[in-house]
């Protein structure tokens, strides 16, 4: 069995029999039975591994989970992998810090646009006035445009970030590594950081196919109708204390109202594709999203009752402070009612985003890809963008409604000094991780079970929750 080189000594140079020309004449009789000259013994070459094409793993058993899991720290690159989350959160925090600090200048810019004198280079230089005298309406218009751009970029950059994060998280949950190589050809490819960007370029360059059976205009309009309400819904989202694009006193209602519009896009996509799987997916999506709007809305009624407002800023402020100076007064820590509302809202948010336990509109193993089966290239990626934008929206809402918004969880000095947008971002990212974690653990519901679950379980319990919240308000939080 061994294919090792034969380590036999080569026969002593195959002692050449005396040259036939010399001997045969002398003793022909004796030479006839003499053995013919043995053919030279074959000496197999020593095998040499070809190491030019990559690192060779010669001991196969080092790749067995038994050994990999046993001495995890010796695994090449695992130190990096383990430090990944820490690094990511650190980097995110710094980015958030920078953005947050920049926002201090925002009010100043607003004032300058309105005609207030300012130093030419902001910190030094001669004092000047903005050269163009703008009407107050124009100032507001420019100001709004800036805020709109910021919110738009939040959504777009979130697409880049969260898709990459989902791929990494899902890979590590599944004992894989996920994107590793995308980045730079020279080797600075930290965990494939550029994967989503490159995927995006690829999707942009892909052929945009409209099936022959499709309703062309509706088919083209559907992705826009899915993503536009989602971006609009971000207007009153709270990114930190006072950091909203639009400070609406009906912010909560506004978000839910716009998030609900996307379902029309889903139905349009399913209908217009001219594909039976898409049609089924679109119908399922309509039924699902409309159903889960209800428990999602009712589950936060206790929060609204406690806070006494629909304004996200007010809701966030209502959670400031600590019980006994230790436990933060977040709504999730209100006994029973807080946790119940949190769980119902989380489940309904997952269902709203069509993600795995509730991904029946896409249901890869049943409907191929559901309502976006017939979409390709950028149209498809807009659906994708919308999905992740809804995940981000859900994460921020969870952080605002239940996790105290920008409040620090620990009532101690180094933590309370951290600015609110960082807490907000950290909580939202934690919630996003929960979204991903749920997706990569659970199997999928069936259509009727999904409906049973929302109408017979989530909705009644959210009503019960409202009743309990009413009792709290009557007797405890008077």
């Amino acid at each position: 069995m061994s294919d090792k080189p034969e380590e036999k000594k080569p026969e002593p140079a195959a002692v050449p029999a005396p040259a036939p020309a010399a001997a045969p004449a002398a003793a022909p009789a004796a030479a006839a039975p003499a053995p013919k000259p043995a053919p030279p013994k074959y000496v197999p070459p020593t095998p040499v591994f070809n190491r030019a094409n990559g690192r060779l793993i010669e001991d196969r058993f080092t790749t067995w989970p038994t050994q990999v899991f046993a001495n995890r720290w010796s695994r090449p690159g695992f130190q990096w992998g383990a430090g990944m989350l820490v690094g990511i959160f650190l980097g995110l925090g710094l980015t958030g810090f920078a953005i947050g600090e920049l926002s201090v200048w925002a009010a100043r810019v607003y004032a300058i646009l309105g005609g207030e004198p300012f130093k030419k280079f902001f910190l030094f230089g001669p004092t000047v006035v903005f050269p163009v005298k703008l009407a107050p309406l124009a100032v507001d218009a420019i100001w709004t445009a800036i805020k709109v751009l910021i919110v738009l970029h939040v959504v777009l950059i979130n697409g880049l970030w969260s898709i990459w994060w989902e791929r990494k998280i899902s890979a590590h949950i599944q004992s894989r590594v996920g994107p590793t190589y995308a980045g730079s050809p020279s080797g600075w490819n930290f965990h494939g950081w550029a994967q989503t960007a490159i995927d995006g370029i690829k999707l942009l360059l892909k052929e945009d196919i409209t099936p022959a059976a499709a309703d062309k205009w509706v088919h083209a309009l559907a992705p826009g109708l899915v993503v536009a309400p989602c971006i609009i819904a971000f207007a009153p989202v709270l990114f930190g204390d006072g950091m909203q694009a639009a400070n609406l006193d009906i912010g909560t209602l506004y978000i839910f109202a716009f998030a609900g519009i996307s379902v029309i896009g889903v139905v349009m996509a399913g209908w217009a594709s001219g594909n039976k799987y898409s049609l089924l997916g679109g119908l399922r999506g309509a039924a699902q999203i409309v159903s889960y709007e209800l428990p999602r809305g009712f589950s936060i009624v206790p929060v609204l009752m406690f806070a006494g407002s629909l304004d996200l800023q007010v809701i966030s402020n209502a959670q400031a402070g600590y019980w006994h100076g230790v436990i933060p007064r977040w709504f999730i820590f209100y006994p029973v009612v807080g946790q119940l509302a949190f769980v119902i809202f989380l489940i309904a948010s997952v269902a709203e985003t069509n993600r795995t336990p509730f991904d029946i509109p896409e249901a890869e193993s049943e409907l191929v890809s559901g309502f976006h089966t017939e979409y390709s290239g950028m149209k498809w990626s807009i659906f994708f963008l919308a999905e992740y934008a809804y995940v981000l929206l859900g994460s921020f809402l969870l952080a605002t409604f239940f996790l105290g918004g920008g409040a620090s969880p620990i009532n101690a000095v180094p933590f309370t000094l951290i600015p609110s947008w960082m807490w907000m971002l950290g909580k939202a990212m934690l919630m996003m991780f929960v979204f991903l974690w749920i997706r990569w653990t659970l199997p999928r519901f069936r259509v009727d079970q999904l409906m049973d679950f929302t109408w017979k379980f989530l909705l009644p319990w959210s009503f019960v929750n409202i009743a309990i919240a009413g009792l709290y308000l009557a007797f405890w939080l008077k």
Partner: protein
Amino acid sequence: MSNMMTAADASTMPELKTDQLFINLGPQHPSTHGVLRIGLTIEGEVIVKAVPDIGYLHRGTEKLAEVRNYHHCVVLTDRWDYVSAMPNNLVFCLAAEKLAGVKTTPRADALRVIMCEMNRIASHLLFFGTYGIDLGAYTPFLYAFREREMVLDLFEMLCGARLTYNYIRLGGVMVDASPEWLKRTGEFIEYFKPRLDEYDTLLTYNPIFMARTKGVGIVTAEEAKSWALSGPNLRGSGVNYDVRKFAPYSGYENYDFDVPVGTDGSCWDRYFCRVSEMRQSVRIIEQAIAKLPAGPFMASGFAKVPKPVPGEAYAHVEASRGDLGIYLASDGGISPFRMHVHAPSFINLAMLQEKLVGMKVSDVIALLGSIDIVLGEVDR
């Protein structure tokens, strides 16, 4: 939607009945496990008619065997059920040995049992993973393949191939198991046992999974018998029939193991039979390694080109997917006069047409996945 309507509603409001829709499920579909095509006529989400269509992977193995000698036919058998090829090898060798009247050595028998049971684990792991994917859970698939990879590594270490083994030969096995291999197998078994509990937590007793599979696609014991189902599909319906117990071959009677039997024949029972069988396979492998007899691994008696006396032989084994049988007829020539395969996947698949009617589209996938077909064996 029409699935919300009761029969009474439908009769009082006939104008609300939706059109029937014809859907082609396959041959290129993510979850038909190969090139199976099912023509589904649906009404809303409910199936009113299902027509399975097979034959996309037909390679004429039975005919090919008629122009090859017996040693060559073993190579053909690898290609039926390519997910678990060891029992295929085994069943052909058993039939040919019956035909030629050759008796195998005890060591060869034990090695055959070990390999078949390892292959059963590998096959059921594939089932476990893909069934998870069918029902939307991706992670169990990767976990199952992580373990399956170890089994395939062991196969590669012993016989050099990872999928089409050609390991079990006429009269014995290809090579003997080295002590190193037996040690590594033991290592794998020790690693694998706790993983089975994790699978149970992750999928078997997951409430969503149970809701999707319990009470879905129920096949009663009578139906199962009348459709001649076999393997976990039959045992899931509560019929205790296992060839290893009732017609032992290769010394299965020497091992102590149970036959897991389901209760009501739902998808979950079929699934659970397979997961439990993995535990039993682990038991068998442990026993077989513990009392592996010494001796030759290949019996003498087979010529380079065997020419059995004219006659017939039938052998059947409990393959990963059920009762795999093979019928060999010899006319005294160097190749079989006729080879016929009793393929469990093909027979198990036959229940689709009747069982699918009245189910929902999601349940089609649940039922199809729980039958655990391999199209290579269905079409041969």
